[in-house]
């Protein structure tokens, strides 16, 4: 009787039919009303731009022009797909994604397992891993840019101490990927750690007790109890870090010293989101071409996320058998 109003309880014979109906509607429709704000906001700032971007990608729209021009069919998509810079950006994105997401999930799992043990000052340790996540990405990128500066950076100085030649963090393709992946990992590992840690703590403790009684060591317990129990959370972490990994923008953009911000002079670390952004600033049909590139990126992410989902589910099913 959560919904009984004060008047209704005082005069039970009153116009209760209407009140009852209202109360029924409340129970029936109120939940939708509560979730509606999200969907309305999503429709306005998520779905609408998505669809409009799709619409725009089939038109011409001259630079600085105030209005959308004529339809051009698939021309914008053809332009993007045949652009060698797009190919390079695709490879860069996948490369940086692999260098960031894979170590991120592995390290996060290991740290979570360590935090799940009986450490002294547990809360302090747990909060500490989240610290990088609190730092604004732009600020973090500035700090890391100073560390990875080609001539005067800390990273190269330290390599110099152990006798390794300075690395061209901005010029060498793989080195630049590594530098950017390091920034991303630094930021997101703690966040993933806490999510995985939460899942680990939900694993029934008596499972571990029984395992100990059966003589299983901590490594064995981790493989045979912890990992299988947190699979659903792992899927979540992997899927979200995939989406995030394929949309890396802030780090490479601020890491870039090239004046045109094209991800290094040779596009060596231009990501797909940077490609979309730069295309929106280019000379011919900037927005429609960027829209086409954005849709291709969207399809790519959906594809990879689905693939991820299928693979992890297959592993899960095999594990369950």
């Amino acid at each position, binding site marked *: *009787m*959560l*919904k*009984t*109003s*004060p008047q209704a309880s005082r005069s039970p014979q009153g116009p209760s039919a209407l009140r009852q109906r209202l109360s029924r509607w409340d129970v029936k429709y109120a939940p939708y*009303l*509560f979730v509606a*704000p999200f969907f*309305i*906001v999503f429709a*306005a*700032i998520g779905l609408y731009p998505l669809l409009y971007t799709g619409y725009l990608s089939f038109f011409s*729209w*001259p*630079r*600085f*022009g*105030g209005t959308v021009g004529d339809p051009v069919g698939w021309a914008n998509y053809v*332009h993007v797909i045949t*652009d*060698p*810079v797009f190919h390079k950006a695709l490879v860069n994105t996948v490369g940086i994604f692999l260098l960031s997401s894979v170590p991120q999930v592995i390290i996060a799992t290991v740290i979570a397992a360590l935090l799940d043990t009986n450490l002294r000052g547990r809360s302090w340790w747990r909060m500490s891993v989240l610290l990088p996540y609190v730092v604004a990405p732009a600020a973090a990128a500035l700090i890391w840019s100073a560390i990875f*500066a*080609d*001539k*005067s950076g800390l990273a190269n100085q330290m390599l110099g101490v152990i006798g390794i030649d300075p690395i*061209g963090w901005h*010029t060498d393709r793989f080195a630049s990927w590594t530098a950017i992946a390091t920034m991303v990992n630094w930021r997101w590992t703690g966040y993933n750690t806490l999510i995985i840690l939460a899942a680990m703590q939900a694993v029934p403790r008596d499972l571990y007790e029984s395992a100990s009684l059966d003589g299983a060591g901590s490594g064995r317990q981790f493989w045979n109890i912890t990992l299988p129990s947190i699979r659903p959370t792992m899927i979540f972490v992997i899927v979200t870090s995939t989406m995030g990994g394929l949309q890396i923008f802030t780090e490479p953009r601020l890491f870039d*010293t*090239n*004046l*045109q*911000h*094209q991800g290094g*002079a*040779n596009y060596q670390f231009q990501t797909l989101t940077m490609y979309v952004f730069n295309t*929106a*600033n*280019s*000379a*011919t049909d*900037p*927005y429609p071409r960027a829209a086409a590139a954005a849709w291709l990126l969207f399809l790519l992410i959906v594809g990879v996320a689905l693939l991820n989902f299928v693979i992890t589910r297959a592993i899960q099913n095999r594990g369950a058998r």
Partner: protein
Amino acid sequence: MSNNSKPWHRRPRTALAACAVASLVAGLTACGGGDGDEQSSLGKDDTLTITTFSEFGYDEQIEKWNADPERPFKIKQTKIAEWDTWKESMTKALQAGTELPDVIAVEGDAMAALVAEGANEQFADISDPELDGRWVEYAYKAGQTTDGKQIGYPTDIGPEAMCYRADLFEKAGLPSEPADAAALFKDWDTYYKTGEEFTKKVPQTKWYDASGSVAQAMLNQVEFPFQTEDQKVNVENDELKAVYDTVTKYSPTLSTKVVQWGEDWQANFTNDGFATMPCPGWMFANIKSSAPDVTGWRIADAFPGGGGNWGGSFLAVPASGAHTEEAQEVANYLTNADSQVSASKAAGNFPGNLEAQKTLQSENAEDPYFGNAKTTEILTNRAAAVTPGVPFKGDKYSDVLGLFQTAIQRVDEGEDPETSWTTFVGAVGNL
């Protein structure tokens, strides 16, 4: 009571959420409508906005305007550190039709894209026959569309001299007095040859500040570097290739190989990183702020290959503004002789305003930082050496220039010049 209070707690929250959503949606639709036809008048306490980049030297003149009770409104300036950053936000705002400041500063290289068909409708026509003859002819023309609509008032122009480190020249046994050093800057061959001599004697110092800056200097002497007169993009011409080949040939020996405007570039002003640099008037302020304690910087009244103009900006009035007439007044005020003299003294920019040039010439001030060089006299001579209309700047000048600079950066970073050239030509084809 707890039962009763719950519904009450809920209502405000739902209302709050609904309100947030409503305002969000309303905000979005408000964003969409950027109709600029509605003009409204300004009161004394109203403010017109202007955005400039780098340093235009307008602080004093704007303060003066705001302090004057006769002025019908106030002016508020926003300064953006770099042109490239401002270019991006400006382009985006123009394209999306979102709000821009009432007056905007535009770099000269990008002006060509804005006067082009399709783009110039976004700017108010600020033609004013009374202003004919106020500016250097070629700068005035550069702010005009082909059918004579004026969309930009020139602020400064960028005649180039050569700046060099007299102390390092001495160390290398080169003539260090500006009058003597000028002979080393008479043409590009002498310039590069001297550079090779210099770097042999002073191996830890490079000859010039960045490959990009000498590339730009040489490029500014080519008549049609990127586009032909009918706006057709053509980068595979012999003159441009010659510039590219020369710059990339000397990249390993004479260049610092750093990117212009970067931290390493900045640091080289003080740590003896390089000895010479092409030096338009607005660069003087950059040198002073980058190397306040270095005493060896001098200016030679010479430039390899004759003259060259690098940069120089415009003030334009976006048509989307609600006060285009008042904005035109502000642009007019800031580019008049008084303002330009004051701006030139504050920032070192060489005015495009002819009367301001005359005033500065009659004062003929000496700059103690540069060994008491008579900067106005030097820049006046340098401006006279510039061939008007060279280089031809087509609508894609700024875009191709960016790609060209990047192509040179690739060579600085160790890529084979021919490979980098091929990438450049391909990228230009994809513009």
